[in-house]
Structure formats: structure tokens, C-alpha cells
């Protein structure tokens, strides 16, 4: 357990020292202000414990770059943590022991989980909206039917009323004309 925390601390320190480096190499990485930095910084986000949320806009636009994290992450780590790289090379079938492997798969799993959760949330919203739309359609339909039935009722009442009136007055129909 301790090793995991230490490792993260090391990573944090290394990445912090990475930044001044990159600013010196402005010739080699001219897109510093635009694209590439965003990639690695975002991936760093993914690899940190999830108490910070990635910026919402980049989540969709950088979806393509998200597929690349493992490679970049490995290269970052090998640059600074040689011992850990050796360990990861031996991993193979040893399962999830401490070190490099959990880093990558943790990032992967987290990413996977995020995607699934996002999809699930989208389905949930769609479900809700579809139901609401259906109810709205029903309301329109029921209002129309209600109006129609009321009109019908009115007409029937009027027809009945006039019939009543004629019946109240006694009239001879088949008697002689006196």
C-alpha cells in the first residue's frame, strides 16, 4: 500500500519538474500553447486520483487522444522511474502486483468506467425525455378529445331541451278539429 502512494508522489514530483523542461524546448514543441500539452496534461488528470474532474469540453474533443494514454504514460514513467519500468516488463502473467501495471490498467479501467457511466447517464436522460414527450402528446390528444366530447354533450343537451319544450304543451293530434 505504501509503495503505491510513494509512487504517486514520485510521479507528481517528476511531472512538476517536467514543465520547466518543456518550456525550454519551445523550438521542438511549438504547439505548446495549443494541442500537444493538452494531451499529456489531460492524461495526467486521468492518472491522478479522481478528485478532480477533467474539463468538460476536452472530454469529447480529445476522445481520440484518450486511446493513446498508455503509450505516453509509459514513456513518461520510463524517463523518470527506471526501476518501475523493469518491473512492468516482467509483468506478463504475474497478475496485478504493485507498480506500473496497476497504473496503466487503473487508468484504463477508470476511463472505461467513465465512458460507461457517461453512456448510462445519456440513456437515462433519453429515457426521461422520451417519457415526458409522450405525456405531452397525450395531453394534447386528451384536451382535443375533451373539447370534442363537451361540444357533443352541449349539442345533445340542446336537442333534448327542445324536445322537452314541445312535449310540455299538450297538443291534439288525432282528435277532431273542435
Amino acid at each position, binding site marked *: 500500500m505504501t509503495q503505491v502512494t510513494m509512487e504517486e508522489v514520485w510521479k507528481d514530483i517528476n511531472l512538476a519538474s517536467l514543465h520547466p523542461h518543456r518550456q525550454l524546448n519551445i523550438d521542438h514543441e511549438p504547439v505548446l500553447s495549443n494541442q500537444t500539452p493538452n494531451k499529456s496534461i489531460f492524461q495526467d488528470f486521468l492518472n491522478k486520483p479522481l478528485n478532480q474532474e477533467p474539463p468538460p469540453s476536452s472530454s469529447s474533443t480529445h476522445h481520440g487522444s484518450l486511446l493513446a494514454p498508455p503509450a505516453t504514460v509509459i514513456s513518461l514513467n520510463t524517463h523518470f522511474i527506471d526501476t518501475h519500468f523493469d518491473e512492468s516488463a516482467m509483468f506478463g502473467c504475474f497478475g496485478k502486483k504493485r507498480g506500473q501495471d496497476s497504473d496503466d490498467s487503473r487508468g484504463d479501467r477508470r476511463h472505461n468506467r467513465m465512458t*460507461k457511466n457517461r453512456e*448510462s447517464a445519456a*440513456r*437515462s436522460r*433519453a*429515457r426521461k425525455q*422520451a*417519457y415526458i*414527450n*409522450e405525456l405531452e402528446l397525450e395531453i394534447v390528444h386528451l384536451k382535443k378529445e375533451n373539447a370534442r366530447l363537451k361540444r357533443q354533450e352541449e349539442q345533445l343537451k340542446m336537442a333534448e331541451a327542445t324536445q322537452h319544450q314541445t312535449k310540455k304543451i299538450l297538443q291534439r293530434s288525432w282528435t277532431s278539429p273542435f
Partner: protein
Amino acid sequence: MSVNNRDPLVVGGVIGDVLERFTRSIDLRVTYGQREVTNGLDIRPSQILNKPRVEIGGEDLRNFYTLVMVDPDVPSPSNPHLREYLHWLVTDIPATTGTNFGNEIVSYENPRPTSGIHRIVLVLFRQLGRQTVYEPGWRPQFNTREFAALYNLGLPAAAVYFNCQRDNGCGGRRC
């Protein structure tokens, strides 16, 4: 009454995942017990143990219709690799009548979703005439679009869907 983007069938993904866009041309009324099925309604397995009453509109008894009932979210909506599961198939239903008057090619099997909230879709197709429909042979991995193409059924005449999850599910919220 053409389908717009606010149509529940579109918003709920039924048009897209199961069906093409279509214009409803006939009335379809599906009732489980006292409950009429309207799009997106939440119905639990215990309420749909037996086949529903299905009444169709139209005017001419000489027009025949086919009813298909599928679950596109099998085994779970997040991983529907067995899409679609065929629950019921009835053909030769005369207009103005119901499934009782048709030919039950595949018997009704009540949905029992185990994982997630599944959409259960009922689709009505108009047949060109009385026709022989061969039962698919198995229920999973049914494809409504292909089935319609195979029997020249064209676009759907009507459709309705509801949501189904296991009886003690929490409706998608944290329990």
C-alpha cells in the same frame, strides 16, 4: 402525423436501434390487464407475465398485419451483444381485430430482464397479403429490419415501446 425529432420513439432510440423512421398509418393499442402501454412507461416483469391484448385499427378486414415484439437491450443496455431478443411474433392479423385473430408463429415469452432497464418494442407491419412466415428458429439476435426486408413488409405501420427492469429494481436511481 410524421415523425419529428421529439417523437418518443426517436428520443428513446427505438428508431435507430430497431426501426427506420416511419409514419404511423394505423392505430395500435397494447394493454396488459388494465394498463395501456404508452411509450416509455415503466412496467415490471410481474405485470407482463401473460400476453397483452393487442387491438389494431384500420378499416378493411382484408388487410393483414404482422406484430413483432423484441427486446433490443439484451443482455443489458450497456452491452447489448444479443440484440434483439424475439419475444412474440404474430402474423395474418386482420385490420380492426387483434392478435387473437392472427397466427402466433412464435409464442409469447414474458420478458425477464436481469440487468439494467430494457426497452421492449412492439412493431406492427402491414403484409402484402396473407403470407407464410417461417419461424426464425431461435429468439436471440433477431433483426427486425432484416425480417421486414425478408418478407417485404416495408416500413412499420405502428410501434410502441415500454421500459422493463427487474421487479425489485430502483428505476435507475441509487437504491
